[in-house]
């Protein structure tokens, strides 16, 4: 594209009071040969925007550098259409508001930012959305026909999209159909499950294709272009869909491991699932002799919140026991239910049902089971009563019901093994090692994805497919595949309905956005996608292995086969590539390299060190803006460069910076590890790993490793910014200036 660049400097919001304009304008014309450079006291006002629009029309300006406020604000005001390149230089939050006005260092900072902005605009091309050759599908595949799956399919169909529902059992309904009653809003009484009506609605809906007794044999392609092979009862079918919802639900925790609670030893010790099925079939009886149960004890947290069994709380078992105690009261008002609990957890409004169960006269005992035994034909339980502070014995019990927890259907009973890499420590004699939960090879078969990184969704440590359920519910580590219901986290039916609707909306959004060639999440609307210069590829496999979303497949020669519709545009592949052959139209290794070159590095005797900080756009950059808004101060020697994700940082930038005389490099990214906050899941972790290996580069340059530092900065950590920077400046002071200055 032939570029006509215009630079516009805003002097409002204190920028004009802090900086001298003429040197800035001279720099633009002298160093970058840009003749159009104007200033305005209120650039985001109507007049200011008209000024730019006038140049766009009159002078043919198509590349606009706006030196004003942060790019995180007023992006709608400075939108001049998709064919215009707009580059924002942050002179407000990160210069005028955080530096003393009219000082030499402040002026130098502003000049460097303006240079970097011009350099970036120079290298940016307007992105062209990806369009596949095949036709896009907007149908939604739902795997699993329980309450979440059926509702997701129904909501999809009601929104006007075709849904394909695959259920492995002969009939729809899942656990919902096996229940007697359910507890749902407003949590005052038991309500009918509504399973029959829901099944009927799904089966009769013209826009839902139901496959029962079927499994998904294979899913290939990417969002918008998935082709699905379904193995049906007596044959096969294939479908093309735009997005997938996995709602394969849960299985009860294996009670045979709970022998210490009497399961398997005494006939009258049941699980809550068995109790539910017995109640649904008719009466609550003693399995040993078929007599009606008069006295029942519920053991809560049976195997839950126990490091030996399920370490987590399944959040529904308390309500289930309250429900089953209510069945017993309905069957026989004289019958007694004891509920032996660790903590009653009835979330939200469900507390009302707890009140009801208390009012019904059920007896709640807080404590833990010491022994379950049989005396005569009745059971007894000995327990430590925490509130009474002594050991108690409950006798004459007809039934003991173990409230077991929920295990995601994706969690394998036996962790699969793979061949261990040569340097692995935990490998067994045969050289095999357990697969980690966040690998695509861990989970039980449900989707059978044709992805290089494995056939199933990577999961979190307890086997639930990854989903940051506060920030990004339903999202998994595979673009266009969403999870809903108990596969995502343990939940009751009311929450499963919300989940189903949410995942359906996400799936539809994905199918629509993909058809337009734009990214869904978290860079919603981004039109760029990575392009590979295959001539220079060395088949090193780093991009195919490190992509957090499994977007890149591999051919048999290990050439990367990108799937642009699976891509979230984080740039982790770009950071990984040692040959630097991966780039975006508006984000590339060369572009950041040129921005680094644009930084003016003073001579050593001037005693003005230069630090470059690569800053994650998602969390750390807003934190910087926030610190600016709060008028915090920090060293004027730091130049911030926003990056899509720290994972997109190519190590060549480290070498580039240090060889130019930059004294130190700071990497500000998201928290990683078990409770990661990275928007691209592994980006910041990968960056940290790569940086730990950067000492090699530093050794080659004969430099100290302290010059490179990684810090975790959350969006709420803005108040730590001055401290982080001054600490790093002290380190750099100690290490001394970079010997490469002026080379």
């Amino acid at each position, binding site marked *: 594209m032939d570029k006509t660049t215009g630079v516009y400097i805003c002097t409002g919001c204190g920028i004009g009071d802090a900086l001298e304009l003429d040197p800035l304008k001279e720099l633009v014309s002298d160093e970058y040969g840009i003749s159009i450079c104007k200033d305005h006291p209120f650039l985001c006002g109507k007049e200011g925007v008209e000024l730019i629009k006038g140049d766009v029309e009159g002078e043919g300006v198509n590349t606009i550098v706006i030196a004003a406020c942060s790019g995180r604000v007023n992006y709608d005001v400075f939108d001049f259409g998709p064919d215009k390149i707009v580059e924002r230089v942050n002179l407000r939050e990160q210069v005028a508001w955080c530096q003393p006005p009219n000082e030499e260092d402040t002026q130098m900072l502003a000049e460097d930012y303006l240079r970097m902005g011009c350099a970036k605009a120079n290298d940016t091309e307007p992105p062209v959305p990806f369009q596949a050759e095949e036709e896009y599908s907007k149908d939604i595949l739902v795997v699993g026909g329980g309450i979440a799956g059926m509702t997701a399919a129904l909501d999809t169909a009601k929104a006007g999209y075709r849904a394909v529902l695959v259920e492995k059992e002969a009939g729809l309904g899942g656990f919902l159909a096996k229940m007697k009653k359910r507890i749902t809003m407003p949590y005052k009484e038991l309500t009918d499950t509504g399973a029959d009506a829901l099944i009927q609605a799904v089966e009769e809906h013209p826009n839902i294709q139901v496959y029962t007794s079927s499994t998904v044999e294979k899913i290939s392609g990417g969002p918008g272009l998935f082709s699905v092979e379904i193995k049906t009862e007596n044959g096969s079918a294939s479908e093309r869909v735009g997005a997938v919802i996995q709602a394969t639900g849960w299985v009860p925790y294996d009670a045979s491991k709970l022998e210490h609670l009497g399961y398997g030893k005494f006939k009258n010790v049941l699980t809550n699932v068995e109790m539910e099925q017995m109640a649904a079939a008719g009466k609550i009886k003693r399995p040993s002799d078929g007599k009606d149960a008069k006295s029942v004890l519920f053991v809560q947290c049976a195997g839950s919140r126990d490091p030996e069994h399920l370490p987590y709380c399944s959040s529904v078992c308390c309500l289930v026991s309250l429900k089953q105690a209510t069945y017993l009261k309905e069957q026989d008002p004289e019958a*007694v239910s*004891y509920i032996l609990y660790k903590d*009653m957890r009835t979330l939200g409004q469900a507390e009302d049902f*707890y*009140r009801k169960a*208390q*009012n019904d*006269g059920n*007896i*709640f*005992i*807080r404590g833990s089971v010491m022994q379950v035994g049989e005396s005569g034909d009745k059971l007894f339980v*000995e327990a430590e*009563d925490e*509130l*009474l502070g*002594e*050991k*108690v*014995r*409950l*006798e004459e019990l007809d039934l003991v019901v173990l409230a077991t927890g929920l295990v995601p259907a994706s969690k394998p009973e036996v962790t699969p093994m793979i061949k261990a890499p040569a340097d692995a420590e935990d490998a067994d004699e045969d050289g095999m090692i357990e697969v980690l939960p966040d690998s695509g090879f861990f989970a039980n078969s449900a989707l059978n994805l044709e992805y290089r990184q494995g056939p199933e969704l990577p999961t979190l440590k307890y086997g639930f497919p990854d989903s940051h359920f506060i920030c990004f519910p339903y999202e998994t580590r595979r673009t266009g595949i969403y999870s809903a219901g108990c596969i995502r986290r343990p939940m009751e039916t009311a929450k499963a309905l919300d989940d189903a609707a949410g995942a359906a909306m996400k799936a539809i959004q994905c199918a629509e956005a993909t058809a337009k060639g734009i990214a869904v999440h978290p860079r919603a609307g981004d039109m760029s996608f990575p392009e590979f210069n295959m001539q220079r590829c060395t088949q090193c496999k780093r991009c195919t292995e490190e992509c957090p979303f499994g977007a890149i497949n591999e051919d048999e020669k290990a050439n990367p086969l990108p799937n642009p519709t699976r891509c979230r545009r984080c740039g982790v592949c770009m950071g990984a590539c040692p040959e630097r052959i991966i780039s975006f139209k508006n984000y590339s290794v060369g572009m950041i390299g040129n921005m680094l070159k644009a930084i003016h590095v003073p001579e050593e005797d001037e005693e003005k060190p230069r630090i470059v900080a690569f800053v994650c756009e998602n969390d750390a950059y807003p934190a910087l803006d926030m610190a600016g808004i709060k008028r915090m101060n920090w060293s004027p020697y730091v130049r911030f460069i926003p990056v899509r994700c720290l994972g997109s940082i190519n190590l060549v930038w480290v070498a580039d910076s240090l060889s130019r005389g930059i004294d130190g490099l700071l990497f500000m990214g998201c928290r990683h590890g078990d409770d990661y906050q990275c928007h691209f899941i592994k980006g910041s972790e990968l960056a940290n790993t790569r940086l730990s290996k950067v000492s090699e580069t530093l050794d080659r340059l004969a430099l100290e490793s302290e010059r490179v530092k990684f810090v975790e900065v959350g969006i709420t950590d803005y108040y730590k910014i001055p401290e982080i920077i001054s600490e790093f400046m002290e380190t750099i002071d100690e290490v001394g200036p970079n010997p490469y200055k002026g080379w």
Partner: protein
Amino acid sequence: MANYDPSFAREVFQNVDFGEEIKMCMQCGVCAASCPLSTEMDYPPRQVFTLIRAGKREEVLNCNSIMLCTSCYTCKVRCPRKIPVVDVMHGLAHYALKQGFVPRRQPAVFGREFWAQVYKLGRIDEKDLPRRYFFSEGLVAGIKGTLDFMDVGLRMLLHKRMKLLPERKIKGIQSLRKMLDKAERMGKGGAGA
């Protein structure tokens, strides 16, 4: 090892004023934390409710907790389950006395003496009431109690809050007694019943 026996809980639900409200207790302990007298009590209110559920009849009806309640109402105001804890405690106190449980030297004794004096004089004799209360547990306890309160008594004399001579009956004591009699017939019996 104690056996859980729901029969005492049933007894309380049926016979004690507000007894059935105990069902709603979720053992959060806000009542215990709010009670200004919980340090003096055998069991804080929360634990009284646990004991009822566990069927510990003797412990509950014999404990001083139900007698010590001063009706400050903090627990009732704060209870997240809206249990009228004060009323339950009074209900239990009445029930315990009715069942023949003899309170130890406790507000029940004080209440009984207070009531007797009001009935007799229509007012309280500031010398006579403490004397009867302190000596209710014997001579030694009586002397000790009296000595402990000597400076209070002297200051009351100094400020003319207490006379040296015995108090006389109020005017119209007969009418007051009629009112008290009627009140007693209407109610289920107070601490002096």
